[in-house]
């Protein structure tokens, strides 16, 4: 009977451990994506550029602006496509307007395709770093300052950034992600 108790406790411990492991997978998954640059997730911190410009090649950078289905904002990419050299600083502009009669808070989430490009896409400044608070009917120009890493693999000739605005008015305060 004593050995029963020990085994039962071990198995309950394993059960609890696996329950917690399920939650541990959430940050582990992000860590894994960060390290490997998989899943097209961008780091949401500003990067210093190195100053070296690789003029031997030019990369097409495209911008897509979306709003999440329940987001009553107008969001347009003013620069749909541009060509930049790796290492060169560039700027892309967007227009965003709150179409409702209420103050709203939005957060832009970016996704990069191909996902390998995410690791080499450095943003020195971005409207997606912050929540955007827009009053009723307020319109605003927002921008992203970025550069491409000179280590960008040769195989990448074109990078597409897709920004999606989500309504987070009800989700305040959000995690500083």
């Amino acid at each position, binding site marked *: 009977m004593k050995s029963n108790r020990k085994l*039962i406790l071990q198995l309950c411990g394993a*059960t609890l451990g*696996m329950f917690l*492991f*399920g939650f541990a997978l959430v940050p582990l*998954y992000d860590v894994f994506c960060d390290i490997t640059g998989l899943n097209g997730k961008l780091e949401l911190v500003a990067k210093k550029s190195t100053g070296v410009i690789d003029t031997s090649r030019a990369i097409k950078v495209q911008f897509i602006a979306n709003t999440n289905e329940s987001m009553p904002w107008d969001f347009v990419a003013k620069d749909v496509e541009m060509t930049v050299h790796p290492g060169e600083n560039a700027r892309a502009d967007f227009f965003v307007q709150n179409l409702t009669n209420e103050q709203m808070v939005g957060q832009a989430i970016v996704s990069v395709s191909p996902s390998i490009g995410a690791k080499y896409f450095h943003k020195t400044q971005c409207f997606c770093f912050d929540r955007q608070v827009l009053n009723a009917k307020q319109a605003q120009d927002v921008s992203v300052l970025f550069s491409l890493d000179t280590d960008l693999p040769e195989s990448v000739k074109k990078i597409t950034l897709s920004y999606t605005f989500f309504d987070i008015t009800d*989700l305040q305060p*959000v995690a500083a992600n």
Partner: protein
Amino acid sequence: MTSAVDHHHGPATGMTRWLFTTNHKDIGSMYLIFSLLMFFIGGSMALIIRMELVEPGLQVVQPEFFNQMTTMHGLIMVFGAVMPAFVGLANWMVPLMIGAPDMALPRLNNFSFWLLPFAFFMLLSTLVMDGGAPDFGWTFYAPLSTTYAPPSVTFFIFAIHLAGVSSILGAINVIVTIMNMRAPSMSYMKMPLFVWTWLITAFLLVAVMPVLAGTVTMMLTDIHFGTSFFDAGGGGDPVLFQHLFWFFGHPEVYIMILPAFGIISQIVPTFSRKPLFGYASMVYATSSIALLSFTVWAHHMFTVGIPLVGELFFMYATMLISVPTGVKVFNWVATMFRGSMTFETPMLFAIAFIVLFTIGGFSGLMLAISPADFQYHDTYFVVAHFHYVLVPGAVFSIMAAAYYWMPKWTGNMYDEYLGKCHFWCSFVGLNLTFFPMHFVGLAGMPRRIPDYSIQFADFNLVSSLGGFLFGFSQLIFVLVVVKCVKGGKKAEAVVWEGAEGLEWQVPSPAPYHTFETPPEVK
């Protein structure tokens, strides 16, 4: 052999016998009856699906209700029919096969069972709720199951929690029983294979059911408490849901098939009148399948956009599983080779299992080829694949086990003629139902859609007719069980000529208490 029946401790009478029982045989029977009931409820939903798909266009149900049917059919069959049936068989047979007087934790055993009726009553009650039952598919991908879910999703989450607790407690009970209560000289490598496969299954359950519990808990807090585990707007990720779900989900498919492997490994030697070929390799093959099952989950997600290295890793890891599975199929065939075979109902189901499960395995290999999977993904080819491994796989093995051990449970032989009728109707019915799905799937018919393009009409009609044949022939099984419980030719202790194992040392029907003194194991 001395009979260990204690006449002062028979079963209690009336309802309390079933409510308060701690007897492994009573609880085993309740699990089996419960799972049969769920099999019919889930089966009726499948027939509603097949009724709608008899011809193109919408005729019987609305698309919303169709979605609820596909979702509930999957959930009920997986969590309500197949898993409890195996737990019921474990309850009945594991103590008898290892020479133990009962399960190690009898009260916990009662609790694990009685959680289930409440869990599934709650799940089924969502059908009459405002907004309807869960309609997001049995895989309940976020955000379909969070942002866009009907209000009843909360009841679904708690039902999964309850069923999960029941499975985990059942699994802990099985592990403690097998590890601590074997008859003295029964070493691990002398255990019957059904016991071995259940031990490994129980460890899988302890490892992955808590992850599922965590996943549905995250859904719950996303829906009601403002977290954003799966919501990109709050910094979460819907793909995370799929990773978490399939980290549970892939081992889950082995939870539903490893005990089946054990059952087939008991039945084939009996009716071939030869010992099982390659016992040790069976044990190692089962263990390696269980270990590998943790490394293949993303093959369900080839099309969500995982990187090339990921696609390759999960493709090769998945294909690797076919090696130990091939070992098992080889061993079963080698056991039958030059055996003195007879073809009673359990053996018919077992042989059909080997043939049809292998077909399901081959379509699984096709799906594992990641570049090809982009065409097969979410088509009826996938539906054909997993029904071939689950219906003639898990369900046939349960039927085989029921016929094989029913004389030991009831003390009466079942009606062999009706048993064979049941087998042949099921065999023809299921192949008519699921085989054409391979063709419509390869031709591009998407799954989970109530309407389809007219070129799929003929094959779908065949599938529906087969589905009705399969469904209604299960009523023959009910008839067999009822007749067998009521009476029939008395069964001997050793029911089958070639049967080996401790369960045949007790009389038929197995007395209420068995092996109160541990038996000798040769």
